[in-house]
């Protein structure tokens, strides 16, 4: 039993170092800049020298600078607040879809992006957590539990962000295809906004889901087979499907606008580096 469990766990974990390596590689392609707070505070970076006041202890005086002048100076460093970023990576069955044999499923891309972002953030000294139950922590040590948790699959058809308590004023990144029911998402975003959390919604879609290139009499099934739709002429549905997809995207955008979040769209046939860059920018800009 234990052996079996371990075997399964090892089997499960086997791709993870690869994923991690891939994510690190991807992260390396994005040059992170330390996000200084542009005011004095706790941090390593030099911010300014200011004349010492009476309240400054003698130990704080920078004697090297003071030696070149008549007044005493205190060396201030820039305040570098470590941000907490909480990721939610949709691991539902719908994410396991791939429209072509040579294309990785959406879930792979979502994990990759998520982990790469985590690598980047951790390098930048931020705290990264993973919904639902991995609270944000600092340091590379966080990578391992992140990776392990990301490897697990969800058996549900479509994923919904869990109702987890996010750290106040932190940031959140939701990676999903957002094709399932939107109520869960709206609720989760609403709760987050209530705690002053800003974030990014990254919609990862397969190109096939964008184009709907089907023809003829077809039965469409969701990945678990719980949802079915039969049509006699799939090609007739194309425009209407696209319309609905656009509507769904609009709904996402509206939700984001309302809550001050951002929406990014990414297709699995595009380069993940671009998406990571955009995601990084979005987080950076939101600060």
């Amino acid at each position: 039993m234990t052996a079996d469990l371990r075997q399964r766990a090892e089997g499960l974990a086997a791709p993870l170092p690869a994923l991690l390596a891939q994510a690190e590689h991807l992260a390396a392609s994005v040059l992170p800049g330390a996000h200084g707070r542009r005011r004095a505070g706790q941090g390593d970076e030099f911010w300014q020298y200011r004349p010492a006041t009476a309240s400054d202890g003698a130990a704080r005086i920078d004697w090297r600078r003071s030696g070149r002048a008549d007044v005493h100076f205190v060396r201030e460093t820039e305040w570098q607040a470590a941000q907490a970023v909480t990721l939610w990576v949709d691991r539902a069955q719908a994410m396991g879809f791939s429209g072509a044999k040579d294309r990785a499923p959406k879930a792979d891309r979502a994990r990759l992006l998520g982990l790469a972002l985590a690598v980047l953030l951790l390098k930048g000294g931020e705290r990264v957590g993973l919904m639902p139950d991995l609270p944000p922590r600092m340091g590379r040590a966080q990578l391992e539990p992140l990776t392990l948790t990301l490897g697990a699959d969800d058996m549900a058809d479509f994923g919904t962000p869990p109702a987890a308590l996010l750290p106040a004023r932190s940031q959140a990144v939701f990676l999903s295809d957002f094709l399932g029911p939107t109520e869960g998402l709206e609720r989760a975003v609403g709760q987050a906004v209530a705690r002053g959390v800003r974030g990014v919604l990254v919609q990862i879609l397969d190109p096939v889901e964008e184009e709907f290139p089907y023809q003829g009499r077809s039965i469409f099934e969701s990945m678990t087979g719980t949802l079915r739709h039969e049509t006699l002429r799939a090609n007739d549905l194309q425009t209407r499907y696209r319309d609905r997809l656009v509507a769904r995207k609009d709904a996402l955008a509206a939700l984001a606008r309302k809550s001050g979040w951002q929406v990014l769209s990414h297709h699995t046939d595009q380069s993940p580096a671009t998406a990571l860059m955009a995601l990084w920018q979005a987080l950076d800009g939101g600060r």
Partner: protein
Amino acid sequence: MGNLGFATPWLLAALVALPLLWWLLRAVPPAPVVRRFPGVALLLGLTDERTETDKTPWWLLLLRALAVAALIVGFAGPTLNPQAARMGDAPLLVVMDASWASARDWSRRTERVAEVLAEAARADRPVAVVVLSDLPEGPLPLREARFWAERVGALTPAPFVAKADTVAEWAATLPETLDSYWVSDGLDHPYRGPLTDALQARGALAVYETSRPVLALAPASLREGSLVLQAIRLPNQPTTDVTITAHGRDPSGVERALARATATFEAGEQTAEAELVLQPELRNRITRFQIEGIRSAGAVALTDDALQRRKVALLTGREGDEGADLLSPFFYLRQALGPVAELIESPSIDDLLLTAPDVLILVDVAALGEVETGQILDFVRSGGLLLRFAGPRLAASEIARDAEDPLLPVRLRIGGRTVGGAMSWGAPRMLRDFAPESPFAGLSIPSDVTIAAQVLAQPDPGLAERTIATLADGTPLVTRRFDGDGQIVLVHTTANADWSTLPLSGLFVQMLERLAVSTRGAALEESAIAQQVWQPQRALDGFGKVQDVSNDAAIDGETLAARDFGPDLRPGVYSSAAGSLALNLIGADSVLSAATWPASVPVERDTVAVTRDLRAPVLILGLGLLLVDILAALWLSGRLRGGAVAAILLALSLPMDAHAQEDDRLALQATSAVVLGHILTGDARVDEIAQAGLRGLSRILFARTSVEPEPPIGVDIERDELTFFPFLYWPITENTPIPSDAAYAKLNRYLRGGGLILFDTRDAELAGLTRTTPEARRLQTIARPLDIPPLEPVPEDHVLTRTFYLLSEFPGRYRGRDVWVEAAPADAERAEGMPFRNLNDGVTPVIVGGHDWASAWAVDEMGQPMVRIGMGLSGEEQREMAYRFGVNLITHVLTGNYKSDQVHVPALLERLGQ
């Protein structure tokens, strides 16, 4: 379009089910494809716009209905033009006339029989195929149709018509119930009526005839020096032309068509004539006439002595005097008759008449003995021609003065006359134009023909009608009298130039020809034929092909005289002591009449539509439609991708490119390294040896020189590019095909471009004995259009003798005999102190020999020699020399005259040193 029938018509009832199928297919839409698709959440609630499209599209329905219909019809066994009339169960008798008249369409007839047999096989009835001209012994051979189907091809028409009594006898032995199918030759034969009745009495009778006209050729006859050919046909036919060719050996002994004439049948006419005017020389060569394009014994007329060279006997008298030839009275006769007739000369009338001549010529003979006169008279009366020339002796004699001499056509006046001589006032007389009824009619008279002296005919009442040529003043020059079957002709002047210039002119020759040729119908009397025993020489088969039958048993004259053609007496040429006799199927007075059938007998013409089994094509159509349906269904359901279509199309188009690729392969293979090539001759063994020989040579080259050839390639001169090969080996066989013009152009380009062809006739052994061999002749034929410079046997100082090894001869499998190369320029001279002449630049374009080098070079895959050369050790030595020749040859090909230049090296070095 003919009728359509079915083997199992009840199966067609299944067609009723088609509407059911239609309904069923319409009711059931095509099976859906199940797809996993996360976007389904967005699809929920969307309905199809057009509900009616859930049905199978109408064209797919139609396709399927058609496919099923085709399958049903196919299994029902459709047959085009079923022959209901011949669908009985009784045994079937197929009767063929198989006479000469059916030969023309023989293949069509046997095809028809094969079709009938196929029908019989389907109906599973016993069949007997009987050829009337070759009736089977014993009871009717009823067998299953397949037995006969194998034998139909072997049936041949006979060169005669079956005999009525044998057919009647045979008909009496036929079984009681019998359906018959008569493949008729379209002619009426004596047995036709009775046999028709007999067959109709036993069962249904159907007749098959072809509508192509039956044509026959009557024997050629001579009329006024021209050959008259008569073609015969059935009555009531439209206007047609037939071409008649005369066949014989040309002067080189090759059998070919010597002349052609066209005979035109007027509409409704049964006969057509063609006239052929030929040089006697040519005419004598003719062995048969034939209607062109018709293969039938009836369309061939063989010729015999009647058209052959005349035998002309010349009574020469005693030629004691050794006078000049030109003065001899016989000189001009010999000159004129020699080429066209068989001239027999003797001073003895007995001897002459024993040779049975056609013409007897007496030149200036006055009196003859009584016995001789009698003999000559007999000769004349039995059809001979006595041709006499006047002369001083006849003029001086007393014969035929008062009474008519039996051997002279007219009475003569004493002394004759001289006009225009040294002692006369008058001028020499000219000839008057020949009268139309004269045998000389139409000959043109040269203006320089003059008569200076002649014997004169007594004016008799009959003189005018006996005169066939006169002088300008009306005096007879040539008179003729018929006696019995023959005739006596007197030329009133001499046979030499003493009295006239006539013998000097061409007219003399023509007149003699007319006289000699128009003699003798020469038909042998029936009684004369019957008395002889005849040896067959040549005989015709049913198709009119001449066969040599000189080894057959001789035939009794009476059989021959009866002309009762049958298996024992075929039309042909027979010979006996009396001469040769052509026995032709068609006589001069033969008439062809068409077969008439009772109204109750159905007659099929060749327009009869053939019964055709449509089962296979219809089933294939059905399956094809089903295949299309599969594709259509796939396409409909969206499972047929462009890739799949492209793959199918690609698969279909693939074979097209195969050849081009092959060409490239040859080019690549041939150009990647030095490759020796040999030209394919079509003779598998020769090609194999050539390939093996070049393989052996390639190995030797590889081992000994820096030439490292790839395995040799066989080259098809018609198809392959030659320019890749520096060297081609061309073994010549007797049957090496003559290249096409395009191939010649290619070869010439190759030779001019510096290629070398080694022609090997492989016959040095034989050629030493006979000088010319079939291979050598073939080589001459092949090489004639080639651009080959003058050749000479390899001179001792040719560069070939020293390009690698020093060689004095070039043995292959054989040694000895010359090898020919391009001749050295005439001005090639040996420079002072040089061992060799200063020879031409470049490589000889051809080397011709017969030493069978490939055999000497040939090794198998293991490197073992394939052909034994000579005896023991010396043979191996010869093989080594052959290899050395090969090495020299290839080195020569690749380096040109390099070795030739090498001898100058010392001189060049010396000059450089200075």
